[in-house]
Structures are given as C-alpha cells and as structure tokens.
C-alpha cells in the first residue's frame, strides 16, 4: 500500500520543498487538512533531496518511528539554463516499513526516469513550477490558481498513480500528448535453484491449458514432455532440445513456481519418513483421501463409496481367508478382486506410508507387504504413492553415494588431479554425487556402476564404500 506519494523539488532560494503530494497533507501540512503528516519532513528532507553525490540513485530511508519508509530517486539535471545550473527533484513514495518494498523500487525508478526525460526534452517540470508553486506558497496566496492548464497538474497525476497502484497493482497514465506512464507492481521471487539432469520435473498446473503459440518454442517442446516420470536428461532427449536449454526452460518454470523437482523413481531406491508424515497419519486437510485418489489403481474414476461393507459380496470372506492368518491389514480392504477401482482404506495407506524406512528399498518394502498378504501392486500405484509422499513432505529419498577413501585423502591434501584417460567414475567418488547423477550422466544402470566400481583399477580392497544418506 502506498501511504503517500510526493513530488519534491530543490529551490535555490527556499531549499527543498514539496510541490505536490497525495493524499493532501501527508508529507507537509496544507491548509484545510487536519490529519497529521506521516512523518516529520524536516528530519527526512536531507534524504529526499540529498547531497549531489547521492543524486541519481535509488535511495530509501526509514522514519525515526520505524513506521514508514520513504523510497525516492533524487534526480539532478545539470544544465546552464537553470538557476545554479541544476534542476533537482524527487518523486517519492511512502510505504509501510514492514511490507515488501521491492515491487515499489521500479515504480520510483520509472517516475524518476520518465519525468527526468520529459524535463530534459521539454522542461515539463521547470515550466510547471511557474504555474504551480510549492505548497506553502500556495497557501500564502490562498490556493489561488495561476495560469492556464493545458495538462493535468502533477498533484492529480500522483493521486491517480497512487490509487491505481493500490487498487489494481498497475497504472497507465497519459501525462501529456506524447507520454504515458505505464507501471506495474511485480513481486520479487528469489532465484530458483539449478535444475540438474537427474531431476524429475512435475507440473503443478496443466500447461496444456495455458500454453499458446506465442510461447517460447523451446519451452513449448519441453513442457510437452513433463510427465512426472521422465528426468530432465530424458526430456531433453525426447524434446530434441539441448540439455542446457532444457534446464534453462525448466528453471524458468521453477521461478514461477509451476513445477516441482523430484528424484528419479527406482524400485531399488530407498525412501524414509520425515516429520511431515505425522500430518499424513492425522489426515490433515484430507491428505490421505487426496492420496487415495492419486494412488489407488483406477480409483479416481469411480465415485463409489469406499468399499461396501463386504457382507453382500460373497467373495469377501473367502479372499480374506485365502490370504492366510497373517494378513494384518487386509481385512480392512475391500477384498473384492473384480474389475473397477478400489479405494484402499485410509488405515492401509497410512500403514503403507509409515513402513518406509531407512535401509529398506522400495522393493523390500513391497515384498514385506506382499508377504503380509496385501497385494500392493494390485491396488496401489507405488510410484505415485512414493511421489505423493515426497511432494507432501512425508518421505525423503535416501540417496546413494560412492566414496573412495583414496580419492578423499587426495582431496583433503589438495593433491587430487583429474586423471586424464583415467576412470570416468573417479570424479563422482567424493561423496557429493549421488547415484542418480552417475546414472544419468554416464548412462549406466545402478548395477552396471556397481560392477564397474568393483573393478575400479587404482584402488586396493576396501577403498570404495557406499554411503546412504
């Protein structure tokens, strides 16, 4: 919210004066307005029109109370035609101290640039002064309006800017016949992290619905291959776009928070719970139901109530019995093995989610549940379950790293030299490169890498260890 907006000028005789302000009386008192000013102008004026060294740059200052910030861009235009060869002015805005000030920086810059240019070209501001004296002089003359206006007074211009930016976040204001001020408040996003070749982008929105032919061509090709399964390298390959460009395009999407980056799903990978899993167990915000819709095989299409109570369908008891006495959770399932979707019970989903564990691969996890009598694969899309867990912060991927002690020792002493023609895997052995990276960059499968490592030439026995983290 812009609390106030003003136009200040330096006058050789009178010093710094507020020429126009909106709302009236926000910076300096005017006749007929009782509201107190936002701050003491006298304290801040040396920052509104500062010394010459600080002109022509964006300057902000907080008021002593810590309530407001004054954002300004004092402009000094040297030219012999002015008194003292210089014209100094500042268009500033006053905003609350605790809001994000970044979007307003551009507004202030744009005002300064536009009016400075108009002044340089046609003396817009300096002419204006002759008709439009500073506020206190106006008061002395009883607010009498002098001269004839062919264009909007600056005061009303400021008011429109303030109102439009506050209400619509943008404004488009014709200043005179030739000039228009276009401004918009843009939020500032931090720079997104880098996109790596082994990341798997997942769309947070339906790109197909928003994309149009004016989009960047590379982007259009890339988004067509974002399916939540393919890794970046694969997308680049499928889209016939270079990896670097693909990464750039995806980073762009990341900047606007329209994709998520996950890891590559393998059945041999390991996932483990994070504290966020408690939200899942407590079904916060219907998370488990959301999960059921996402992961249950064929469940989404059927609006059917979650598992009929099993009394009618005769198959119920028999399948349950067939699963043996060990089926700890299966009796809660709709055991009807017929066609159509099944809604796995919330308890079972919770159970599935909580049984991930450090040191247990998805495969082992799956086997555990199969042995317990629950045919996971028939009811649940495991990949989706895992991804759901990762996205919701219930699970994290336990990555696999390979470490060569010898190489570490070389790194510690700074003797590590890239071995030309040496083993291409060595550079991955410092513990900073997960297997996902090796897999995508070397185009090898996990088992192939392990085999290569076993025959790693330079090392003795036991030099290489595998750390899960």
């Amino acid at each position, binding site marked *: 919210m812009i609390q106030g907006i003003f136009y200040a000028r330096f006058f050789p005789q009178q010093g710094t004066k507020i020429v126009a302000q909106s709302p009236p009386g926000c910076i300096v008192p005017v006749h007929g307005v009782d509201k107190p000013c936002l701050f003491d102008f006298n*304290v801040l004026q040396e920052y509104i029109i500062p*010394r*010459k*060294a*600080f*002109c*022509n*740059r*964006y300057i902000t*200052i907080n008021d*002593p109370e*810590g309530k407001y910030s004054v954002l300004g861009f004092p*402009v000094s235009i040297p030219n012999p035609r002015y008194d003292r060869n210089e014209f100094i002015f500042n268009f500033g805005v006053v905003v609350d101290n*605790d809001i*994000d000030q970044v979007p307003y920086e*551009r507004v202030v810059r744009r005002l300064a*640039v536009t009016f400075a240019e108009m002044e340089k070209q046609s003396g817009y501001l300096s002419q204006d002064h002759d008709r439009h004296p500073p506020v206190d002089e106006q008061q002395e003359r009883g607010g009498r309006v002098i001269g004839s206006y062919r264009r909007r007074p600056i005061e009303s211009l400021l008011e429109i800017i303030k109102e439009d930016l506050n209400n619509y976040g943008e404004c488009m204001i014709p200043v005179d016949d030739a000039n228009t001020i276009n401004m918009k408040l843009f939020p500032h996003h*931090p720079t997104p992290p880098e996109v790596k070749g082994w990341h798997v982008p997942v769309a947070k929105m339906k790109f197909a619905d928003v994309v149009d032919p004016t989009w960047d061509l590379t982007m259009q090709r890339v988004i067509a291959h974002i399916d939540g399964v393919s890794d970046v390298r694969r997308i680049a390959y499928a889209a016939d776009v270079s990896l670097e460009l693909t990464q750039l395009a995806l980073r762009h999407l990341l900047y606007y928070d329209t994709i998520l980056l996950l890891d590559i799903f393998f059945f041999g990978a390991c996932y483990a*719970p*994070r*504290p*966020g*899993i*408690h939200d899942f*167990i407590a079904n916060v915000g219907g998370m488990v139901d959301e999960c059921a819709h996402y992961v249950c095989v064929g469940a989404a299409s059927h609006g059917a109530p979650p598992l*009929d*109570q099993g*009394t009618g369908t005769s198959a119920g*008891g028999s399948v349950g019995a067939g699963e043996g*006495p*060990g*089926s*700890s*959770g299966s*009796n*809660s399932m709709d055991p009807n093995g017929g066609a159509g979707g099944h809604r796995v019970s919330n*308890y079972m989903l*919770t*159970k599935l989610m*909580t049984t991930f564990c*450090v*040191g*247990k691969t998805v495969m082992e996890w799956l086997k*555990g*549940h199969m042995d*317990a009598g629950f045919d996971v694969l028939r009811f649940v899309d495991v990949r989706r379950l895992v991804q759901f867990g990762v996205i919701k912060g219930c699970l994290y991927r336990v990555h696999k790293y390979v*470490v060569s*002690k010898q190489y*570490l*020792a070389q*790194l*510690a*002493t700074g003797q590590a030299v890239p071995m030309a023609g040496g083993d291409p895997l060595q550079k991955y052995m410092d*513990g900073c490169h997960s297997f996902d990276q090796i897999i995508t960059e070397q185009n090898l499968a996990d088992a192939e890498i392990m085999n290569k490592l076993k025959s790693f030439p330079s090392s003795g026995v*036991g030099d290489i*260890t*595998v*750390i*899960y*983290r």
Partner: protein
Amino acid sequence: MALPVLPSPSNFLGVALVINRSRDGPRFVFHYPQLVPAQGLSGARPECGKDADDDDDLLLARPSRLDGFEASAPSVLHPDNLAQWNHDDHLVTESGTQIVPWEHVAGFPTKDLENILTPARAYHKRLFQVSLDPLYCVSYPIYVPENGVWRKKKRQQRKDAGAAARRDDEGVAPGDADPASRSGERGVSEADQFEGRDSAKGTPKTPDEAEDKKSSMTMFNLVFFLNPRKHEVKDLVDVMFVHIIKKINKAYKYCQQRSDFVWKESKKILALKDKGREDKRNMSALWEDILQNSSLAQSMQDIYEAVSQNKIAALQLETIEGMVTHSVQIPVPFHISDLPQDLEGDECGLWMTTANSLISDEAVEEPSYLDKNFGLLLLADEKKISAELQGDPDDATVSMIEFVRHCKPTLSFYQVGQQSSNVLTPAQVRKYAQHFIYWRRAIAIPPLHARDMYIVNPNCDMRKLPQATARWARQFPLLPALPNFLAELSVAPRPYKLHCPSKAHRPVYMAMLAWLMRGGWVTQLCTFAYVVVWPEVIYEVEYALEAEDIARSKRSQTDANIPPSPPAGAAALGDVAVAGFGISSSFLSLTTDDEPSDLASSVTTLRDLSLSHSHSLAPRQSPDPDLSPPSPRRTLSDPPSHTTPHTNPSLAMTPVAASQQPTAAEQAAEKARLERIADKAARELAERATAHARKAVPEQTAHPSVNAAKHLVGMSPHIILDAKKATGKESLYLSAIEKRLRGRSAAVASSAAAKMPRDRNVSNNSINSNRGGAPVGAGKQGRDAHASAKDDGRVADAWGKFSKYFNGQSALERIALQEDMKRKDVWNLLTAMSEYLLCVRHW
C-alpha cells in the same frame, strides 16, 4: 527454527564510525576494512540482472557513476586512472587536487557520507537505515543527553552497586537486552564485567563538565554497510540490528559515558589521519598504525572480522578506567527439524532432530522434562573450555568448571546434577548449559545411548567429507575410517552397540558417536507411536455400548412413571461422551439417534465395568449379566412382544395428565396418542434388541490384528492420534485394550506360545520387526507368551503410564529417561504392547 539470514563478506561490507560535533560538524572517523568496495549500481549483480530496469538505468544511473569523484575532485581524472587505482596510494590530479584513498568509501566521498550518516536527534537510539542503491547503511545513532554532558554521575552508582544502578546504563542492563538473545545469566555477567572493571580502577577524577562540553561531540554513529540480496533486506537488517548493531553501540555508549572513550579515540584516529594525509602515507600503513594505536579501531576490526564470518565478536575496549569487554553474536540454531528445501544451502550440515520441535507446550514449561530429555555435548575439548573459563575467572568459574567436568553427552542434565553429588543445583545446571549453548561451546542433545539407533544425518554436508575423514583418522587412528563407519551406519539402522566389536571398545565407540554428532554427521533414528484400535476392539466396545443402551431404554420404558434421569455422575460426563461419539463410526445406526443423556450413562456404566469387572477370557454368551441394570428385570433376549402390554397402563397415569383434568374425550385421545407412541417406541426397541441379539457376540482373540472374523470384515482399524487426550469412545478403546493386556493370562499364553512367532512376523507394526536386527527377537516372544499373570499386570499398568507418549510426537526411546526406568524394561513392555501400536521412525 529456521536459519536466519546471516552476514557474510558478500553482504556485510564494512563498518564505519561517524561522529558529529557541535561546532565543527560531522566527521567520518574510521572504517574497516580499509577498502569497502564500491558496489556496482543495481544490475551489476547477476541476480538483479533480470530486473528490467536496464533501460531506466541506462538513462540515469550510468552517468552518475563517477559523480562521487567529480564532487571532490572537480578536475577531470581519467577514468582509466581511477579504474587502476589501488586505493592505497594518493593520487594527485592535474589541477593539483589530492585524492586521498581513505576519503572514498564504498564509492562515495567521505565528505558526503559523513553528512548523510549523521541523522537528526529524532533517530537517537532508534533504527536508522538508509539505502544508497545498493548499499544499505544501518545503525543505531547515539546522541549526547539533552544537557550536553556525556558523563554520568558516578557517585550515585558507587553507593548502590546493585541491580538498580546497572539498569541505568542501558548499554548493558540485563533488563534492556533482547529477551530472545539474552542467555539468562549472561546479561548479568556482562554487567558484572563492566561493573567489576570499573570498581577495580577506583573512583575517577571528578568529571570536569566544562571539559566535556568542550569536546562537544554531539553524537556518534557506528554504521554498518550491508549489501543484502533483494529479498533478504529486511531479514538481514533485523538480525544485524537486534543482535549486533544495537548492542555494540550500547557498549560504546557505556564507555563514552564512563570515560569519554569514543571521543578520545576519535580524536586520536582523526589526528593520525590528518597527519597521514599530509605525509601522503599509504593507506595500508596508516591503517595498521591506527589499529595498533586505537582500541576503538581495533574493536571495529574485531566486529567486522567476526561478524562477517558469523562468529562471536569479542570487543575489548581500553578505556582509561580499564578494559571493558563485551561479546556479541547472532545466535544460530544448531539443529533443524526437517530437511531444508535447498539441500546445498546454508542449512546444509546442520544436525537434524525433532527432539526440540515436537515437545508439547506444557512440557516446555516444566523444566524437569527438559532436564531428563537432554544432555550437553561440548563442541570443543573439555580441557580447552576449562582453560577458557579460567582465563577469565569470576564467581561462577569454579562451579562452571565442575559442570564441564561432569557433563558427558551420555548423561541428561538431571543425571549430571545427580552425579555431581549435588554440588550443582538443577537451576545451576540449566543456567550453565544455557550459557554454553548460547555461546556456542556446546549443544543440547538427547543423551547418547548405545541401545539407540543412529543413522547418517540426511542433511550432513558431504562437501566436508575429505577434511573430516582426515581429522577422524587423526582422532581415531586404529578404528574404521570415517567413510566406512558412515557406510556401516547407513546401510541399515541398528542399535549403535551392534557396531561395536566388544564391550571393551564401548567407551571409544561412544566417543566416536559424540564426534559424529558434533559434526552433524549422524542423527538419532527415533520411533514415534500411535495407538491402533483393531476392528475386534472397536466391535467389542460398540457392542457393549449398544447392549447397554437397549437395556437402558427398556428400563426407562417400564419405569416410565419415574422420570428417566441419568445417573448423577453421568451428567458431568455427558459432554465429553457426546464429543467422543461425534466422531464415532457408523457402526450402529441404532445408537446414533440417542439422546446424550443415554449415551452418558452408558459410558459411565462401561467405564465402571472396565474398571471393576474382572474380565473372563471365555467368549461371553450374552452381555446381559454385565450390562443389565440392577433392578431385577427381564433380560434383553426376552421376546419383545411381551413388553408392550406392561408399559401401557403406567404411561397413562402420568401425573401431568391427571392434574390438568381435561375432558373425557380429550383424555381418551391423549391416552390413545400416548399409547401409540409408547407402542411404537416399544416396537422399535424390540426390533433393536432382536437385531442386537442376532449380531455376532464379540469374541476376544489373542491377536485382534489378525482377526478376520466375518462380522469384522469391512471395518477399518482406528488410529488414536493422541492417546493422552483421548475422550469419549477413544478412551473406551484405550481401557478395553488395557483390559486385554491385563487379561492376557495363562489360557492365552499357552495357546499363543505356538502361534506367536508366526504372527509377529506378519504384523508389520510390531516394534520387533521394525527394529530390524534388534536383539529382542523371537526367543523373547516365547518368554513373553509364557509370562505370568504378574507380567501381564505390569504391561497393563505400563499401558496406562505410557499411553501419554503414544501421540506421534514423543520418541519411545526417551520414555526410559522420562520415567526413570531401565531401557530394557521399557522396550520389553513396549514390545508386549506392540500389537496395538502404529510406529513410524524418523529423526
């Protein structure tokens, strides 16, 4: 606790001292480091690059690039010359103007900076923040008191050297400090330090106010030059202001008030600079000189060097009254509770635990909880810390050294207090621990234990692995190398002691564990549990409730002339029960339309039952003997047809009807109506009773988790999220489970002995199978099964005691500490309960 935005050499560019004098105006006294680089105008840094201000910049900003120099040196200096300038030598322009290297700071002439950085008195002791694109100048200006005299009256203070006097000097008063950063006693000890040095020096000469006025420094301002990233401005400024800027300026103020320190030092520095200007000394030489001669300049160096590396800055100010020392820092969390978004960001390498974040609010207020759950892990060698303490002795030094000696990472604070044979009070232990933690000499951790499981911290900083491996090898030369040990820990979670080859190795392995904890390489894998209510238990409770309800309705029908009032005790329970039933499943459609009072009474009855009635394991033929009201009446299974004729006459005789004396016709109509209603109610009740009687009678099996009986099909197990706060039906479930645990007597044990191991493997949530290679294996099961009734009693008792930990937030590993029990016993008890627990494990 998220990591704050921290200063670093890239966003913290320098410090500068500016003063103002009444007659001579502002002076820029000193800045450090000697070269504060001019920041390129916005757009220069890559992250700003995408801001589309470029066109705006082109129009205005570029030409202003050399404005600063033009102002001070009007004659044109070749930009090339300037670009090559090393900021050390003096330059002389063609017109003879001397450009002095220290007169340009961050691209601005100091002449201009000193003006803009001496704000009006309105900013006295407030945040002053001015940004000069992109440089942020942040400070906390200190003005001379209105009377124009810095010096405080000393005599007053001498007299009451107590707290009141200290409170006067805001620079160090404990009450004034920010409560968050104040670490209990530290505020006091700071004051002590100031006070102590002070008194050591004896009374100074009576302050000469005239001289004070002559010095006429009206304000000083230690300005911090920051260059934060765009979205971090507010955070960085806040953090620096609260923890550093405010405190240092206050310390300076203290010294200025005592001994005119800032002014005297400033005079010294300014004199040196003026001389240097004349002699055209190199800036580096001059700066060296100044730093050696002025403790004020020295302290600015210390501040910059420490704070920009996010270390503790220790100020040492040599006032004429003695050394004043003061330490400042930005407190940083030593742990986080979840994986950070950016795995390679600032938070990488921090130890992860939920031990701090998941404790409930009421526990925090109770200090003994923390005492039992946490121990202290010193971050440096014990001897080194002792030496540090001795190097700066005060009253607390002896007991602090004692504390350090007793602190072991394997002991909780509570145990430390006990082991020190009560030399240290719990309050002292807490206080010292807080002190060490605040000043980064230690961290609080759940005490290490060989039975606990430790995994590689998912947030550990692998980039440090090479160095850490080398250090580890020096520290533990005869033991497995760090990568091997981490690999061993990471491959599958096991109790730590299984990694230890023999008992003799235990101490050194615990030392290794402490080492790994310190570096954030490992974290404890904890188990969190919820109570699972199996369908069998749900059914049993529902069945009993329904039976009770029907019995009640019948009684009220027959005793209709007695108004149906719930038992006195039930009234109070009513609300609770209803709340509980609100979330109940749709198991019994019949009970849902009941009045609250009915429910309430049934709850009480059931409670009573569960408490008083000793449970028989044989399946009950009918719940009636238990549940029917005390009055000798028909049992529920009676044919319903009999009920109607009995009830009718009594209903007609209600006192209300008689007293009103309506006409005969009305009476007849009313009577018929009432009869119809009663009829209907009776029929419904009868139907319910029949339906109830047809239902399968609940049967208790040894392992409800695997009970696949027909009547349970389709029921889903229920998870109780917080057993401590369970109400209504959930509390009934809990007591039903307790009853079962108690009742698991010989009859079951014998039959289960054979069955149990097989079942255990199957039920995934059993702690045993979760514990991987935990030693409590199948062999123990057998013992469990044969356990005597006494053992069952223990389990049931423990169920009541432990259930408060079954909330998914309290790590089961810490129950032993909390309850002061043996770990082994706790695990055995938990194992016995495991069928009713849903466990999940993370850090």
